[in-house]
């Protein structure tokens, strides 16, 4: 049976995402080459620093990947709920999962008053979908809007975004650690150096500078990648419910609800930002373009614009859907 679909994939988004991942890979390769060059030119003590940074960086990425669900739930103070406790929420998730043919994630509720939702977990079997009390109670979302938010989060699970983003940020973690280690060994290692380490004294600051640059570049690329993943999740979510309008109005409501919340709550929520439905904290200071560069989420306007495009596709007469394949 020929598969038919009414929607062409968004090639532009795919191309931009590929370019971002390519650049990240390029930075990674250049960084590794540089480190190997420095290590071969210098003494083992630098090699040890690099090795430790790799082990620590890899280790922390591994831990955050494997315990992402527990860490995120604990950080949000969320509690898993059974179908009896939250029948409506479970009902929506059940149906969306049946439509998308994916295993059902666990469902949790966080006590925060700000309306938001996030999904985490390394694969679809270990994932958790968490919504805040604020989203369920205070945001006056309609059922369809809530469904749109949940479909967006389920798309993050289907896209394995936690895995992708962890691997993507591995380099930044290692580079960041190297800066720190190099800094400390500069401070404390000076007295113990023997004569063989003569050029190491020069190379350690070099590693520090290179790592700092690599860290900055990969940080920006990761944020860029994160924004593309959000757009991709919006798109898949809207195609799943076939109701981009509801997702648009949910986005608008949640975003305006977020800005009404006192600053204290928002700061506390910031570390979880990357997995949230809408960003909890707007960057302070800087021009609009700068904050757009650092942000984990695309601007509301960008997200609405994309959903409007899907809305138009749905309104088009489907005389021969096969031609759209």
């Amino acid at each position, binding site marked *: 049976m020929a598969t038919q*679909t009414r929607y062409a994939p968004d090639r532009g988004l*795919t191309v931009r995402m590929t370019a971002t991942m390519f650049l990240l890979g390029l930075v990674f390769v250049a960084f590794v080459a540089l480190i190997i060059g420095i290590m071969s030119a210098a003494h083992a003590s630098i090699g040890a620093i690099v090795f430790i940074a790799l082990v620590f960086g890899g280790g922390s990425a591994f831990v955050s990947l494997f315990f992402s669900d527990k860490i995120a739930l604990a950080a949000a103070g969320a509690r898993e709920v059974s179908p009896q406790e939250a029948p409506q929420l479970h009902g929506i998730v059940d149906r969306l999962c049946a439509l998308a043919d994916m295993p059902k994630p666990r469902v949790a509720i966080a006590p925060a008053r700000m309306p938001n939702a996030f999904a985490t977990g390394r694969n679809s079997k270990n994932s958790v979908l968490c919504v805040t009390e604020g989203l369920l109670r205070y945001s006056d979302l309609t059922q369809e809007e809530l469904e749109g938010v949940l479909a967006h989060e389920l798309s993050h699970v289907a896209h394995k975004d936690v895995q992708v983003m962890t691997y993507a940020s591995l380099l930044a973690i290692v580079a960041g650690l190297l800066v720190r280690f190099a800094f400390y060994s500069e401070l404390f290692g000076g007295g113990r150096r023997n004569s063989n380490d003569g050029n190491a004294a020069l190379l350690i600051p070099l590693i520090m500078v290179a790592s700092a640059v690599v860290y900055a570049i990969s940080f920006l690329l990761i944020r860029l990648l994160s924004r593309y993943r959000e757009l991709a999740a919006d798109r898949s979510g809207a195609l799943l419910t076939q109701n981009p309008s509801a997702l648009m109005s949910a986005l608008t409501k949640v975003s305006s609800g977020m800005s009404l919340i006192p600053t204290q709550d928002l700061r506390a929520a910031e570390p979880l930002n990357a997995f949230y439905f809408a960003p909890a904290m707007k960057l302070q200071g800087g021009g609009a373009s700068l904050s757009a560069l650092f942000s984990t989420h695309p601007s509301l306007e960008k997200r609405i614009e994309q959903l409007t495009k899907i809305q138009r596709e749905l309104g088009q007469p489907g005389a021969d859907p096969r031609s759209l394949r």
Partner: protein
Amino acid sequence: MGILDTLFGRTKPVQPKLDDLFGLPSAAVQLEAATGFKPTGSGSVSFRAAEGRPFADIQKEVLELLDMDNGKPGGGLPVEVTKDSYGYTWIVSNHLSDEMDALVTDLHAVNTALVDGGFGPQLLCTLVAFSDDSHRRLSLVYLYKRGTFYPFAPLPGRSDRRDNALELQVKGILGEDLKIEQDLARWFPVWGAPGL
């Protein structure tokens, strides 16, 4: 999902599997022989209505198609359309208890019309209702995306309890006639489904 889809954050809409539905008539005979549950003659197709004109047009066509044979011998009763509290549309087709073949044909007509219109991914499930002499209710739910069935038995008078023992019994009885969904986590309750 392939690795490329993961990398690019794409999901392909999942197409429904339609053919396994035709196992229902023989399974109904088997079920009645083993447990006394008879088809009530009511069956329904549940789908997620898409926004926009094209979907509304197709939905209208389907209804006209199903109602064409009204009043003729073997044609069945009028078709009902309801929307449940989760926003899913149910098209309910009513037949006599012994007209399982005609019912399945009706359900299949709805499916093919949606699939031909390019809205196959919108199909959620189909539900065929059964009851026994002591008015216990049972329904077989067909998951389009999996091509599998599962039993759903709400306890009479309760809106939040299901008869798991009966469900598992039916799973054992029909295991050879129908493809039963093995992942019990996917046996989601369809409270308030019409025709139940």
